């Protein structure tokens, strides 16, 4: 019982899934809403991935949709063109979906390595420019490759992703990022973010740590790409444009850069917001843009900057714990946060 109190996430996380699942079964949430929830899941994975680079390591990747595109197209190639997963029995489909997802992740990670290796050595904002360029180059390459549908787009990808699998991958991603941040690897990255010269003289091989984080991030982005491809069943190169990359940046910075919980909530809220504002027709994105500027102006650390859900049990960073596991835990963890605003 005591263990359960400390680890309430073991109950709460499945509970969240069961609730959404039951709402779907009983037609309280229609397919459209479920689709939005699934896309929000994909966006959460992407924002987590971006947080590893921009939040934890302090490097600026502004073309992350490129890695998502690689993941999406590689996994779609795998499940549609190389193996025709649509014609398989359900168990095999699941296996091939997972394989396709991993293939997508590895494909993206390879590109992450090729991009990160030469650029992360350089001091300054070159990663931003090169990732921006990478996203657009990938898009151009896809546009002229007939094997993946070129500029017409790739249709007929089997619908293998489900609410369940997206939920599983969101949870896995969150825990991977948590484990990363709360380790010597993550602390090395945080040190680089805070002061690269000092990190170097503290024995941290800065380029190695940066490349590791970047490749991990690209891998996760590739997984998000696979989820995306197998949810929407249609891929078009222009979907992964620079605008898509800025969406993830917006989720991350509005949510709270550096905070895992912030990136979860930012991605979820801002994916849902335009749908909630749908009644305002063409004004919804005006409000969205205005809101973003207001958030950045009045809360530069983001909505949940410097805060984490208590259930993540993050130790690094002196974070204020918020969240639902406090309900079950009599003692709340009190972390002295002398001045969380001044710290970031």
């Amino acid at each position, binding site marked *: 019982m005591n263990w359960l109190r400390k680890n309430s996430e073991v109950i709460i996380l499945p509970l969240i899934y069961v609730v959404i699942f039951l709402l779907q079964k009983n037609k309280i949430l229609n397919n459209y809403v479920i689709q939005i929830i699934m896309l929000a899941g994909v966006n959460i994975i992407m924002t987590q991935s971006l947080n590893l680079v921009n939040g934890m390591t302090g490097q600026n990747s502004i073309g992350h949709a490129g890695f998502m595109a690689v993941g999406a197209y590689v996994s779609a190639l795998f499940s549609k063109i190389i193996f025709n997963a649509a014609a398989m029995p359900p168990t095999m489909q699941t296996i091939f979906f997972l394989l396709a997802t991993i293939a997508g992740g590895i494909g993206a990670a390879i590109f992450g390595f090729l991009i990160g290796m030469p650029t992360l050595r350089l001091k300054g904002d070159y990663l931003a420019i090169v990732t921006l360029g990478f996203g657009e180059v990938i898009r151009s390459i896809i546009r002229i490759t007939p094997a993946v549908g070129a500029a017409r787009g790739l249709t007929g990808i089997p619908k293998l992703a489900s609410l369940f699998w997206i939920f599983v991958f969101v949870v896995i991603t969150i825990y991977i990022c948590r*484990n990363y941040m709360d380790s010597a690897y993550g602390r090395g990255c945080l040190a680089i*973010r805070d002061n690269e010269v000092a990190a170097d003289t503290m024995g941290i091989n800065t380029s190695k740590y940066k490349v590791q984080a970047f490749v991990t991030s690209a891998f996760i982005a590739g997984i998000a790409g696979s989820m995306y491809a197998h949810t929407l069943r249609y891929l078009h190169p222009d979907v992964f444009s620079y605008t898509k990359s800025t969406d993830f940046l917006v989720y991350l910075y509005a949510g709270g850069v550096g905070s895992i919980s912030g990136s979860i909530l930012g991605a979820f809220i801002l994916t849902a917001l335009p749908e909630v504002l749908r009644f305002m027709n063409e004004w919804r994105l005006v409000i969205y843009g205005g809101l973003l500027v207001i958030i950045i102006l009045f809360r530069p650390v983001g909505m949940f900057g410097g805060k984490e859900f208590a259930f993540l049990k993050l130790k690094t960073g002196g974070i204020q714990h918020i969240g639902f596991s406090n309900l079950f835990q009599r003692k709340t963890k009190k*972390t002295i946060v002398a001045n969380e605003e001044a710290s970031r």
Partner: protein
Amino acid sequence: MSILKADHISIQFGGLKAVNDFSLDLEQKELYAIIGPNGAGKTTVFNMLTGIYQPTQGSIYIDGKLMAGCKPYQFTEAGLARTFQNIRLFHGATVLDNVKMAHSFKTDYNFFNMLSRTGKYHAEEKRITEKSMELLEMFDLQDKKNFFANNLPYGEQRKLEIVRALATEPKVILLDEPAAGMNPNEIDDVVSLILRVQKDLGKAILVIEHHMKMVMKIAEYIKVLDFGETISEGTPEKVQNDPKVIEAYLGGHANASRN
């Protein structure tokens, strides 16, 4: 056996020779100091000794190992740590994390242990936290372990930098103006701290300092730099009375009066 050895190192920036023919031989438990007027090239020497700049001539040995072409982190791996003139703490992290960060390169679990949190991970994290706390307790910072580094008072930030450098378990530690901007009381604290690091922990220390009283009190051997040249070296007594040193500090007047 010398811990840190610089063998006739020089560095040139464009046409400017910032440091010329600097040599140093530091052994265990020794405390050397580098002094000199502003712009004499002291911090440049430090930057060469820590791998931030590559000397254009000469070579550096740490614990007998030639460090040519090595990056700063390799210098640290070889057993050298430093502090900075303008404090460079990891400002977004807590005091404890600052010290734990310095342990990163000595961690004994791999990437997959970390992602899947195996027993090795937990054991190693526990070890790191305990060692970091030990260090913090040694320097009376344990009560502030959850403060953000940039919220510490100035003197304690300097202290934390030394603690963080010690966390890399160095054989030699380089202190760049540890007493800069401090009042006499605080300077006494710094002196006792440095002596503890030297005597109790047995580290070799190389220190840059402007505060002459302090240097004369702690240093066993002093090197004086001016315009990149080593103009004098020796025991504090010898250096203090060297007319060249007086000239460098006071300018042409000393020169005139001497002649």
